[in-house]
């Protein structure tokens, strides 16, 4: 049902059924400067009154030639560029890239580094999902109040990142075989305190949002994503689980040391905007559980495998490593010809693939719904356009 989109040059002439009032269709381009398209993203929407008849997403405004650059860079050099893919979760991007290279080069990662990586990834998941709830509400019109509560919590976690890696968002923290800097004990103490307080913030956010009748009316039965379409379009992450498909790479691949932690994977049933929002809230509660266990039994020991960073060579061959990033399955397909530079470097960006089915979810809905549906897809333009 995703037929190739050819736009007739003459614009859209909808032939109304006989007798129906032939209203002019308005062709609105919700352009790159639209206040709530999460970055530079354009949608050519054909409106019949308020209803959406056709919607064509236009990508490419934030294309920075990331993959070609990586082929010019040595293996270490492209780690800081992965921070800029999904600039909301730089730690997960680093981990995905390092994970792919380690699989290719067969590097063994010490215990402590694995724990540190899980802690960082789960903290990024908390940031991402709480900010999504905030953005979704400001798209629905709640003028930023939940967003600023989410940012208040995000600041605490970004302080933790800054004190360990040096930068709040562009951490460039992980290296092949482990992490760049060890985590001190009082850093762990601060992290435990922040994680202790997170459920209190989640309860406050839920009290503000979940029972809100206006939001229920705005999000329930809106932008429904059926299971089959989600699977066919290879949607991954919370969007897929909201439609009821049980597929979480942390449980499927059991990469890193996720098999040591007991956590559950929440599933929605209808697959509308409300499910996507609430599944993410439940995922945050699971992440808090993982963090508590990881912070409790992080062992002592080396934090990196002592891999020599300069002229680091990867044996020839290709490989695909993937992790469960907050937005979905973030994969790196790397081809190495044995030299210090990757021969081919491709990023499987979850936001890009989750966005292809935007039109199917938006058809028949109102203009206001398009924005809320786009908000629930949770895209970041850096990752979509690379």
């Amino acid at each position, binding site marked *: 049902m995703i037929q190739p989109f050819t736009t007739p040059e003459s614009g859209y002439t909808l032939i109304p059924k006989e*007798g*129906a*009032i*032939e209203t002019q269709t308005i062709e609105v381009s919700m352009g790159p400067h639209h206040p709530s398209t999460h970055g530079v993203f354009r949608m050519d929407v054909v409106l019949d009154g308020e209803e959406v008849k056709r919607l064509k997403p236009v990508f490419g405004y934030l294309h920075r030639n990331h993959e070609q650059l990586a082929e010019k860079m040595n293996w270490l050099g492209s780690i800081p560029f992965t921070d800029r893919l999904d600039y909301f979760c730089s730690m997960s991007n680093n981990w995905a890239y390092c994970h792919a290279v380690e699989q290719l080069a067969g590097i063994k990662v010490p215990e402590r580094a694995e724990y540190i990586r899980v802690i960082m990834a789960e903290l990024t998941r908390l940031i991402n999902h709480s900010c999504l709830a905030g953005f979704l509400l400001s798209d629905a019109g709640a003028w930023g109040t939940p967003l600023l509560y989410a940012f208040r919590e995000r600041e605490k976690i970004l302080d933790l990142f800054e004190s360990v890696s040096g930068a709040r968002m562009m951490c460039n923290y992980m290296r092949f075989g482990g992490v760049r800097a060890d985590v001190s004990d009082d850093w762990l103490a601060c992290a435990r305190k922040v994680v202790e307080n997170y459920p209190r913030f989640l309860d406050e956010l839920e009290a503000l949002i979940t029972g809100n009748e206006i939001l229920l009316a705005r999000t329930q039965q809106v932008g429904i994503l059926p299971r089959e379409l989600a699977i066919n379009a290879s949607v991954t992450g919370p969007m897929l689980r909201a439609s009821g498909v049980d597929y979480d790479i942390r449980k499927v691949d059991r990469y890193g040391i996720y098999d040591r932690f007991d956590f559950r994977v929440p599933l929605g049933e209808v697959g509308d905007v409300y499910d996507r929002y609430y599944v993410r809230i439940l995922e945050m509660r699971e992440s808090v559980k993982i963090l508590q266990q990881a912070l409790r039994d992080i062992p002592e020991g080396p934090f990196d495998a002592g891999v020599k960073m300069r002229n680091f060579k990867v044996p020839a061959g290709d490989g695909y490593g993937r992790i469960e990033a907050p937005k979905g399955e973030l994969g790196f397909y790397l081809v190495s010809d044995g030299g210090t530079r990757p021969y081919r470097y491709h990023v499987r960006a979850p936001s890009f693939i989750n966005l292809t089915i935007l039109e199917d979810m938006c058809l028949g809905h109102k203009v206001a719904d398009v924005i809320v549906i786009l908000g629930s897809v949770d895209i970041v333009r850096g990752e979509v356009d690379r």
Partner: protein
Amino acid sequence: MTTLAHFQILASLLFVIGLFGAVTRRNAIVVLLSIEIMFNAANLSLVAFWRYSPHPEQLSGVMFAIFGITIAAAEAAVGLALVIVIYRYYKSIEVDGMRSLKG
């Protein structure tokens, strides 16, 4: 001082303008607007008569005007709804074009 005659002349002038509009213009909506003008002109003269009447406590003109306004509003609503229905079938609302009485 403004006598009753001034008001009646003004009301009839407005009535005539409305009549002229209703007769000459081809567009159905403008015809409806002119009918509205005629209604208002009538209301104006009624209230003028009440204002200059010897025993105003009967409030005759005012009551006429109030009922006139409500009826004119109802008429405008139905009239414009009819115009939309006509437009739907004939794709144009030229007054001359509506010859056939077919449903």
